[in-house]
């Protein structure tokens, strides 16, 4: 017969014998990401076989540069989705921030001030989203759907529907420049991911984002100011959309009020392909980056294969459905 004391000792042994918690968590996250990585590698291999132009340094850099915009928008989307929400206004925000930035530049504002204006508009719009969602208790879907139209309308009003183009080389170097030979957009994207990953995994704010998405009421009853942090999540999304707008404007040398249409789709796709749960509380940015790359490779591959843009749209939509379907099925099997 054992005694309670022995039971206790055995329990302790269990925790001592097992791998360290950090290792377990790491392994779990790794396994989540592994699926996405495997998908990406498989896709690359397929394209390598199908077209000789795919696996070249020039094309690889090209894909990464093109991916950078969606990848950056997807950072904010990851925060929002982990918190249990959704942000459908990101595409319109890219347009609005872009035209505000462009107008500022055209009015002769110094670059830093113009950048601040562009980012400020993104942050302010995100703040409005967040405040109405968190304090007005409007479903995120409805608020950001409305904001999708509001921001688009504002962008069209500001520009009278016309694109704004022609900026000086200093500004354009944000997209065209190189840092130690690596295109600036890639460096910028990686830097944003590094910072955002740190915020999500190491800061209080990050923890609260997971907590709110996992169980909002329990998080509130743990003394967390849920409404404030929920609001901030949409501010993050507004800011990342605005950063994407800066990059887009610099690359195209144009800001268009009709830019960024369907960006919400690509961003949500990158997030869910990356293994973040649409029901909130789970997910990470490593996955999102891989998801964004997968989307980029797919588009690039379809272009190289000469697939028409109409068909491309159809294929990409299907890929998103299948990716989420697989995720759901795998989760069901595990449960």
């Amino acid at each position: 017969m054992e005694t309670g004391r022995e039971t206790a000792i055995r329990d302790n042994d269990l925790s001592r014998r097992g791998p360290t918690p950090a290792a377990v968590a790491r392994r779990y996250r790794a396994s989540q990401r592994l699926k996405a990585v495997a998908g990406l590698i498989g896709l690359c291999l397929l394209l390598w076989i199908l077209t000789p132009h795919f696996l070249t340094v020039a094309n690889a850099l090209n894909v990464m540069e093109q991916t950078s915009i969606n990848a950056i928008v997807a950072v904010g989307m990851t925060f929002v989705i982990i918190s249990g929400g959704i942000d459908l206004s990101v595409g319109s925000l890219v347009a609005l921030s872009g035209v505000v930035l462009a107008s500022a530049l055209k009015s002769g504002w110094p670059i830093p001030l113009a950048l601040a204006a562009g980012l400020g508009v993104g942050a302010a719009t995100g703040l409005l989203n967040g405040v109405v969602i968190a304090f007005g208790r409007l479903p995120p879907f409805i608020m950001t759907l409305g904001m999708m139209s509001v921001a688009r309308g504002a962008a069209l009003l500001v520009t009278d529907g016309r694109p704004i183009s022609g900026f000086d080389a200093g500004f354009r170097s944000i997209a065209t420049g190189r840092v130690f030979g690596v295109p600036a957009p890639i460096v910028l994207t990686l830097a944003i991911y590094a910072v955002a990953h740190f915020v999500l995994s190491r800061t209080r704010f990050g923890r609260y984002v997971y907590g709110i998405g996992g169980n909002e009421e329990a998080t509130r009853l743990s003394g967390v100011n849920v409404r404030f942090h929920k609001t901030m999540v949409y501010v993050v999304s507004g800011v990342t959309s605005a950063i994407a707008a800066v990059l887009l404007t610099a690359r195209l040398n144009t800001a268009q009020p009709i830019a960024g249409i369907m960006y919400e789709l690509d961003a949500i796709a990158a997030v869910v392909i990356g293994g973040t749960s649409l029901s909130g509380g789970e997910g990470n940015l490593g996955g999102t980056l891989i998801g964004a790359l997968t989307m980029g490779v797919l588009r690039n591959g379809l272009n190289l294969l000469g697939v028409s843009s109409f068909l491309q749209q159809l294929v990409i939509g299907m890929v998103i459905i299948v990716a989420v379907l697989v995720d759901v099925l795998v989760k069901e099997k595990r449960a």
Partner: protein
Amino acid sequence: MIDHAPGTPVLEMRGIRKVFPGVVALDGVDFDLRAGEVHVLLGENGAGKSTLMKILSGAYTKDAGDVFIDGAPVSIGSPRDAQSLGIATIYQELSLVPQLTVAENILLGHEPSRAGVIDRAAMRDAARRSLAEVGLDLDPDRRLDRLGIAEQQMVEVAKALFRRARVLVMDEPTSALTAREIDRLFDVIRRVTAAGVAVVYISHRMRELAEIGTRVTVLRDGRAVGTFPLPETSFDALIRLMANREVRDHFPRRRCKAGDELLRLEHVSGPSGAPRVDDVSLTVCRGEIVGLAGLLGAGRTELARLVFGADRPSSGRVVVSGRDVTPKTPRQAIAAGIGFLPEDRKRHGLVLMRSVGENIGLPSLARWSRAGVVSGRTEHETAERWVTELRIKTPTVAERVVRLSGGTQQKVVLARWLAADASLLVMDEPTRGVDVGAKVEIYELMNRLTDAGAGILMISSELPEVLGMSDRIYVMRHGRIQAELDAASASEERVLQAALGLAS
């Protein structure tokens, strides 16, 4: 009454094994079920009862072992397989559609129809027959959400019988029922067993076992440690087997001297908008456990939420250590040293998909971080310390809380407030859904906390618990304090009388 003659085994499970990452949930369990019996499964939370039943109902697949129905081996790969083998499970959370009628629920998926159009008359008749089988006189056209929980549960039994279930698994069916409803449910159980249906009954309530059970199988740490006839077997013997340690005293309250006043409520009413608490004044001293008794709906949970700032009071003051803190938010309450263990851990207590460590650290992150960056080391070490200290059964602090048993989850919530240095704990039904062994552990922890100078305000609907653990007892009725009793002079009768408003 139940026929105690040994029937033929309808169901046999042999050598069932199930492993989850880090935990052997079932380690070669044998279990058999005879026609017409009520076979009770008894065990602490985490002993493997639910896992065994989930294997039977097809929700989990076993890693090893065999299942036989009427002596023939069967494989249960999905809930659908289980259903076609005549195994029906009635969960704590009912699986009925509230917006449909009783008849529609009973026949869901089996609607009689002509050329695709539902034959409502035939449906009503079939439903009525099934309801009669369980002895329930209900209008089949009533919407399900118009019924009480007990009646809904019986509709679920009727639904199972309609599907020709021969094995009925009931997981804690009485946890939400009143005494009278329990009697009715037991009548239904007796009726269906008399008709040859075999029932597996999971419950922590010892008194019920003697009343309804034919045999009992005790599970401990994933093993079946014995099967015994009921009601001959003594509770003490069963409790010893479950916990594998002598439980001499179920309520090991060590009285200690109450110190200074820790909490004082002055004429608290609220919450504003929908008042359920009316002019409540009470005190809790350091080192004291104050019980809050009363019937369901007396306003006890609402009072707890006001104290913790989960809802806002419309008037009155909450004074902690002489300072008016009347919290508007949980944050302010926590800053004043108050911790709250909610009644519904899963909805209000835990972020189930996150880790033990994260759940423990949630209210304390502000203290553990600098410039918003959390010190991973502090977080980890604190979580580890409390996991060891409270003997929280988890492979690691990185394990997701959703994988832990009820008692273990409760300890995680408790660890959270200890890590947050709470000196006043408001506990709403601290041992609900917790097995006997973990209950005693939680009582011991309450003792240790009060020894260390903490104060506890404990809401409990279990009278023995209130009487056994409290130093003082307040009885609430209709949102007001009806009586204040001293532990020495309190008795079940006096508490009940006050709760019912019969005397003061």
